[in-house]
């Protein structure tokens, strides 16, 4: 659940805007490569198959007076050494490679596809037998074997291409097996089987349609390869003999005239090349591969941002808190040219304290945390506000300036320890690299420090771990290594993004007590992102509860957890299965109806109103100023009434499942500020 906000943001950032109206064309025909590929292939196929009907000359018709002519009105593409018309010859020659490649495809898929379906259906033993056989077939030198076939059965293209289809079926099987297996693993296939559909029907109705794209991509690619092979064979003299035209032999013929008539090799070669390019472009377009413009828009516009920052700083009445190491004021994070992900977030962190950012997935916790290091995903950036780190403004710093801070002053540990370490390098080299960079020590000294750091994070056999690679570690061990890595630069602030979410419960407790010990022993300040109130209660001194990109309540952990003032905090606590010792386990946990509204569709007024039990009509209109409450702050217009009435977010009673808040107000995009 904790991974979601990031993914969602990435999706918002990268999802192309769908065309306003779809015209019923398949997707691949809306890409330039796909359009070119489909058009040219159709043209070549139609022109070749109908060549006898339209060709201006008979392919064998000689005009020796006009030999080796350049293009002219009479011969559009020129003539060959015997004065034969190239245009007529090229398209007359086309049907053989096109048809024999098609035959090769039919054979290759006719064998490969059923084998893949059978192997995926019948399980491991059958799959192993078929796979071993195809491995051998793939390892054979196809071209040379094909020549051996020709040596035996003679120069007969269709049977030769059919045999090539048999050889290629092994590669087809390889690719399709993977797809078939993954399709089969989907649950609805099991459901279909349980419903009594026969094996053939399951394959026809469910498995095959899911494989259509891969089959189409493979077919288009192999078709191009087939054309090249047919032409290559004809080039070697294994094609239709003279005077029959063939692409390969026409190019072979042209190679003898490059001194005197270089034009001769152009038309045939170009038609063949364009046809193969067309097949490959079509395959790419079907596969949905487009040249990724990915990192083009990386350079963010700093100019307007600096202004925004200055304006925000000027407009904030709050004076900088001199005691705080980190002060975030009015921070906004947005998708470039898209919706806001975080708006107006403010909090302060005192040295040696632990601040928790809490909330459901999609509330902007991770975005807030990552903006502290300037590590927002591509296409997402800080759009306003200020991050003061030890009196220095971090918003608007260049990548180089931020990079100099990372690791040395602010370090981060992430939620997935198993993928956070580079799988290709040993733990030793991953630790000693930064140690040498940060501390300017030699190789052996760095290794000593690395071992010491590992022991400090509770790893007993540090030497063995140093020699290991990430995949040899357990999740808890990997997270300890990640913490040790974060400590290599002796940072003053540690940003921990869901540090225990991916770990077993017992390991979670160990990692939390390790973090607690580090704070106690080293005076480190920590920002912890978590959806787990248990974690927050365990190690946080201060808490900021986030909902839909805002901090809705903040204060000391004690105050917020013991006496929640915002209905969302109450709801979170009510939904929390951690029961304090000595209290009875409630029969039912409270729940929060509905989901967090995604960025871009936040309602005006209170963003929690549509899910809040205590919401009233006035909650849905924008409120002018935030009511102050105690030492922390609470973003709720009814906070004083609620605390006076001792409102509690009760678990629902049976039959009371459907919460009855107001009808959700129509989301108004972009008016969230």
């Amino acid at each position, binding site marked *: 659940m904790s991974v979601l906000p990031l993914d969602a943001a990435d999706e918002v950032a990268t999802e192309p805007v769908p065309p306003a109206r779809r015209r019923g064309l398949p997707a691949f025909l809306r890409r330039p490569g796909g359009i070119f590929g489909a058009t040219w292939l159709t043209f070549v196929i139609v022109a070749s198959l109908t060549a006898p009907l339209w060709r201006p000359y008979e392919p064998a018709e000689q005009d020796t007076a006009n030999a080796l002519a350049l293009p002219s009105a009479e011969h559009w593409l020129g003539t060959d050494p015997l004065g034969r018309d190239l245009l007529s010859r090229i398209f007359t020659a086309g049907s053989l490679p096109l048809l024999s490649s098609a035959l090769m495809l039919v054979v290759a898929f006719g064998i490969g596809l059923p084998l893949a379906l059978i192997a995926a259906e019948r399980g491991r033993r059958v799959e192993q037998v078929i796979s071993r056989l195809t491995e051998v077939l793939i390892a054979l030198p196809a*071209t040379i074997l094909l020549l051996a076939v020709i040596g035996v059965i003679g120069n007969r293209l269709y049977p030769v291409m059919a045999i090539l289809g048999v050889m290629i079926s092994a590669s087809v099987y390889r690719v399709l097996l993977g797809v078939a297996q993954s399709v089969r693993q989907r649950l609805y296939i099991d459901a279909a089987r349980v419903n009594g559909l026969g094996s053939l029907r399951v394959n026809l109705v469910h498995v095959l349609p899911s494989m259509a794209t891969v089959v189409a991509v493979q077919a288009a690619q192999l078709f191009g390869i087939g054309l090249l092979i047919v032409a290559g064979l004809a080039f070697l003299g294994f094609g239709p003999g003279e005077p029959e035209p063939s692409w390969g032999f026409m190019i072979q013929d042209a190679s003898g005239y490059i001194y005197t008539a*270089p034009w001769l090799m152009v038309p045939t070669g170009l038609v063949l090349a364009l046809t193969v390019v067309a097949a490959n472009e079509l395959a790419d377009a079907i596969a949905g591969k487009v040249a990724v413009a990915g990192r083009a828009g990386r350079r963010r516009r700093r100019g307007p941002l600096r202004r925004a920052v200055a304006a925000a700083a000027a407009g904030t009445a709050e004076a900088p808190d001199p005691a705080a190491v980190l002060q975030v004021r009015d921070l906004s994070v947005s998708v470039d040219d898209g919706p806001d992900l975080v708006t107006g977030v403010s909090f302060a962190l005192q040295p040696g304290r632990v601040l928790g950012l809490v909330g459901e997935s999609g509330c902007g916790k991770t975005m807030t945390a990552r903006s502290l290091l300037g590590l927002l995903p591509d296409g997402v950036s800080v759009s306003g506000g200020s991050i003061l780190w030890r009196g220095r403004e971090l918003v608007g710093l260049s990548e180089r300036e931020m990079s100099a801070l990372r690791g040395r002053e602010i370090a981060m540990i992430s939620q997935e320890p198993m993928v956070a370490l580079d799988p*290709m390098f040993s733990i030793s080299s991953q630790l000693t690299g*930064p140690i040498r960079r940060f501390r300017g020590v030699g190789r052996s000294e760095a290794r000593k420090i690395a071992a010491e750091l590992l022991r400090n994070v509770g790893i007993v056999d540090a030497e063995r771990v140093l020699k290991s690679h990430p995949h040899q570690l357990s999740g808890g061990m990997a997270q300890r290594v990640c913490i040790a890595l974060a400590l290599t630069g002796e940072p003053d602030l540690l940003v921990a993004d869901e540090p225990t979410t991916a770990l077993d419960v017992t390991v979670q407790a160990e990692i939390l007590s390790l973090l607690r010990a580090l704070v106690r022993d080293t005076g480190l300040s920590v920002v912890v992102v978590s959806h787990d109130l248990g974690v927050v209660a365990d190690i946080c001194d201060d808490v900021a509860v986030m909902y839909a990109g805002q901090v809705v309540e903040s204060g000391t952990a004690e105050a917020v957890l013991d006496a929640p003032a915002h209905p969302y905090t109450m709801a979170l606590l009510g939904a929390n299965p951690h029961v304090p010792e000595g209290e009875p386990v409630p029969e039912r946990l409270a729940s929060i109806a509905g989901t967090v509204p995604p960025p871009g569709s936040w309602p005006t007024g209170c963003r929690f109103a549509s899910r809040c039990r205590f919401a009233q009509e006035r909650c849905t209109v924008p409120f002018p100023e935030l009511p102050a409450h105690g030492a922390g702050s609470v973003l709720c217009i009814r906070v004083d009434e609620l605390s006076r009435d001792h409102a509690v977010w009760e678990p629902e009673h049976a039959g009371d499942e459907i919460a009855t808040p107001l009808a959700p107000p129509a989301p108004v995009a972009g008016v969230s500020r």
Partner: protein
Amino acid sequence: MLAYIARRLALAVGTVLAAIVITFLLVHAGNTTPGAVRLGPGATADRIAAENEALGWNRPLFTQFTDYVGQLLQGNLGTSLIDGRDIAADLTDRLPVTASIALFATLLSGVVGILLGVAAAVRGGRTAQGITTGSGVALSLPSFWVGILLVYLLSLQLGWLPATGYTEFSTDPVGWATSLAIPVLTLAVGGAAIVTRTAAAGMREALAQEHVRTLRAMGTPQWRIRYVHALRYASVPVVSVLGIQFIVLFGGSVIIENLFALPGLGQASQVAAVSSDFPALIGVVVVATVVVVITNLLLDLLVAALDPKVRTA
């Protein structure tokens, strides 16, 4: 790791045996007999039958097969039906030609492909688009056509390199290198295109990995993230595709050797196919299969050395 190597070795031996079985069956399935090939057209059926008997063609297939394997293990591939030359000796002369073309083409594809692929992944935008389109075209071009274009350009127009022919390394090393240059370039066009695509995809995938974020969070310099960490991550698919390219280019040299009149294996297989010289055909298939199998084995070991997950398994 040992079990892995043993399994790969078994597969390798199996593949070579399969190649022999397949070509044996192929040869015997056809309606041409070696006697007819040796005696040429116009020979009487009696003489052909006698010749086949003398060649051992009528013995049980299995005996012929075991005999062949026995001879093969002693390095004997028989003699040509056409001119009686020793096939093993002939192929030993030819193998270095084909192998060096394929090897140099693979190396060149690797260097160019990795540079372009990394540039596409790192620079993005227009650069990536141009490189993707260019490689898409390059891998679709028929090699023999590219070869002719290169001869026209480098040899006829610019006069830098000889158009065709082969010079022995022992007689003239420089001449040897220049005689291989255009064939190698020709093969490398398609090879580099494929390596480019693999390297670009591999680098893109590598840079999107979670651990790259950890590296950035540690303030690791950009060049180090790209050219030490991401490149290392992408090295496994790139090395695999280079191995496959060597095999593909080795096979593709049939056409190139024909175009450039190079005395390699490909040329031998073409000649053998034209003349139905069965022992020569089987010999070429066996040698080519052995090369492929050894390449695959080396590739497996190399990948295992590169990928800690395989190495420490």
